[in-house]
């Protein structure tokens, strides 16, 4: 009964909360602006004038309240100390990334619940403020502004799709809002972004690709045909893989870049040269299943070795009709979808917390396949935010720079319940984490890990030193 009542109340509560924040935001807006004008006359203006003035005004208001009624002041102070730490979660709820977004959201909810169960961050509870970015870079940037200016979030977090990351990062830099992305793109480490954007929870594509290449060359074959989307993401695969395989004495004999929004693929397969020993495929988007199926139909029983990035089948059941031919082929996995025989207790606990079964699908609906190879990044990133905030004794937005510096100072991230995917090394200069990669083979319609790459296999020369950039 109680539950029913609460459910009924919920939408209304939300409405009121929304209206309230809307108006309070407006009201503080007034104060901030009027305050700034005053401040400019009185004190030397700095970057954080507004914030500083607001705090001074708050203290003033507190003093006033205290003068008139002590209990009022007490309540205020108490509210201040237990006020939640707000983490703005830029989520792909709609648009092309929605299948990822749904699981990113579940993982993040679970991670935050765990953090709160363990006492929150610095004794304060953590609250996720979720906004949909529509998987659109323009909306992504707008959402970051909303986090920083309207919902007063301490940090922003969560984005997957590279174009949203790159579109939003300049805004994060301007707002001086720490922006933790879980995108696996090479954009952070390439030096294109800024000091406020970090990717500590997932390995980037350049590192993944060069770690994989030796396995392909040594075990599968030297003559490779690559099939990838005609996106910057696909081009990263193309460039880094061709270079890496060359070092191992192999070569890429054909590259087939598939235009976006393509829904049928058979017509491109004849471009695959006959002497191909290995097909390397990585596709994204809703048409991935068609792609893999049509590849099977094209080759029939006469297929070369096939090595794919699990992106080609993320959120798709490996037992879908038409995928039988995948038996015996190989996949890169960021994190093994199927619980392995040597499963760590960390992975077990993590699975349980998020609600994923041993087959990598939802406990409540086995047909709902998770994006297991990527979503661990949300879990780990939230734990890194926690650790960073604890290291720098984070109090509020004034400590954002200290938070960045605290994260930049991190190096070893040993496998643990905080890092269930495995040990990682974080490079504070490039703002990028490096971890183990898993290569799995499809066997009896399950993905079995056959090789785990060492972390060092994914290292490449640093392209940037963000720590030298001013805040």
């Amino acid at each position: 009964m109680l539950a029913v009542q609460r459910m009924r109340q919920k939408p209304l509560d939300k409405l009121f909360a929304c209206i309230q924040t809307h108006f309070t935001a407006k009201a503080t807006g007034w104060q901030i602006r009027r305050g700034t004008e005053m401040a400019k006359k009185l004190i030397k203006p700095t970057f954080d004038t507004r914030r500083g003035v607001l705090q001074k005004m708050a203290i003033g208001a507190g003093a006033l309240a205290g003068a008139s009624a002590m209990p009022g002041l007490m309540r205020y102070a108490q509210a201040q100390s237990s006020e939640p730490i707000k983490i703005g979660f830029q989520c792909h709820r709609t648009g092309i990334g929605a299948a990822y977004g749904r699981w990113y959201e579940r993982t993040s909810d679970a991670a935050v619940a765990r953090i709160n169960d363990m006492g929150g961050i610095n004794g304060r509870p953590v609250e996720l403020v979720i906004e949909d970015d529509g998987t659109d870079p323009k909306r992504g940037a707008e959402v970051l502004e909303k986090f920083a200016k309207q919902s007063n979030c301490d940090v922003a977090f969560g984005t997957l799709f590279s174009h949203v990351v790159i579109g939003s990062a300049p805004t994060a830099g301007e707002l001086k809002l720490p922006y933790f992305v879980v995108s696996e793109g090479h954009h952070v480490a390439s030096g294109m972004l800024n000091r406020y954007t970090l990717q500590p929870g997932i390995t980037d594509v350049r590192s993944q690709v060069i770690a994989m290449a030796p396995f392909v060359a040594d075990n599968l074959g030297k003559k490779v045909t690559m099939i990838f989307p005609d996106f910057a993401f696909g081009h990263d695969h193309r460039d880094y893989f061709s270079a890496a395989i060359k070092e191992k004495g192999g070569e890429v004999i054909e590259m087939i870049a598939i235009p976006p929004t393509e829904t049928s693929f058979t017509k491109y397969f004849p471009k695959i040269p006959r002497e191909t020993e290995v097909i390397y495929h990585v596709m994204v988007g809703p048409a991935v299943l068609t792609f893999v199926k049509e590849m099977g139909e094209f080759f029939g029983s006469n297929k070369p070795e096939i090595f794919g990035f699990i992106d080609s089948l993320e959120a798709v059941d490996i037992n879908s009709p038409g995928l039988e031919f995948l038996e015996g082929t190989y996949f890169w996995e960021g994190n093994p979808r199927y619980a392995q025989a040597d499963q760590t207790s960390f992975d077990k606990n993590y699975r349980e917390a998020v609600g994923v079964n041993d087959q990598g699908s939802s406990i409540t609906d086995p047909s709902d396949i998770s994006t297991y190879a990527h979503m661990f990044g949300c879990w780990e990133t939230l734990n890194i935010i926690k650790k960073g905030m604890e290291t720098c004794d984070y109090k509020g937005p004034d400590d954002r720079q200290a938070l960045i510096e605290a994260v930049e100072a991190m190096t070893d991230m040993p496998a643990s319940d905080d890092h269930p995917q495995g040990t990682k090394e974080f490079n504070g200069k490039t703002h990028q984490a490096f971890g183990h990669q898993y290569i799995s083979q499809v066997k009896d319609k399950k993905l079995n890990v056959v090789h785990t790459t060492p972390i060092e296999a994914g290292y490449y020369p640093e392209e940037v030193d963000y720590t030298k950039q001013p805040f």
Partner: protein
Amino acid sequence: MDFGPYLLLASLEGAVMAAVLALTAVGLSIVFGVMRVVNVAHGEFFMLGAVFAWWVASWAVGHPAIGFVLALILAPILVGLIASAADMIVLKRVEYDPERTIVATIGLLYIIQQVTLMTFGPEARPVQPPFNQRLALPWFEFGENGFAIVWPWGLGTTSYKLFVIAAAIAILLAVWALMSRTKLGLYMRATQLDRQMAQAFGINVERVYVSVFGFGAGLAALGAVLIVPIQQAHYLMGGDPLLLSFIVVIIGGLGSLSGTVVAAVLIGMSDGVISMFFSPTLAKILSTLLVAFILIFRPQGLFGKRAA
């Protein structure tokens, strides 16, 4: 792969695409022709067809063919009913004004997409085809030993893809029969030619509009049910069919159903064949420009009688 077998393969793929495109575009063409409105939500009706097909198929028990046949019947009817309701609730009240219809159907598009996302989810979900054998195709060669039949590597299709082509042809023939041999078809054509005159002759134009809108949406849904065992149901799948069928209708010439079908075949096939000669994205650029230039040199479309 050699040129000949490649051409055969590309043409087959093009034909499958053309078949589904023809159904979807004929649906749009009838709506466009009779009601003179651009239905931006047409692609969403296509998507709904695929989603309903998945629903029906996942409920049905037994052989996948049972679910598929049920979907083939139920999905278009359901989608048609939804479209008719939208016509009565919204389009009728904006008086089929072309501009207001665009905004209203964009609104419908948002609603349909979001409701699908919330109920069906963001994943791409497959429907099992009723049958799906891989058929290796033969090719002939004049080698040293004279004429010989060979089975080139990779040249093949599936029985289901051939079925899609056949089914689309059968449905198009049925539509043609409906338009030219039945009273409803007569009413539609009369309304298309001259709305006032049709009304003067006692045709209930309002009812014709409702059925045309439902019928057009139903055809799109039918195309989607046919394609969904090859491609999966996904809540964003409506964008491409909308643009492509819109293009096909204009290229074919407004109000000409046969023109629409010819244009669908042309666009479907050219997409496959052009992709043989260029890198994939360049091929897409070229086939897009081809469409633009057909219209620049023949603004009324291939089979249109006068400037639209």
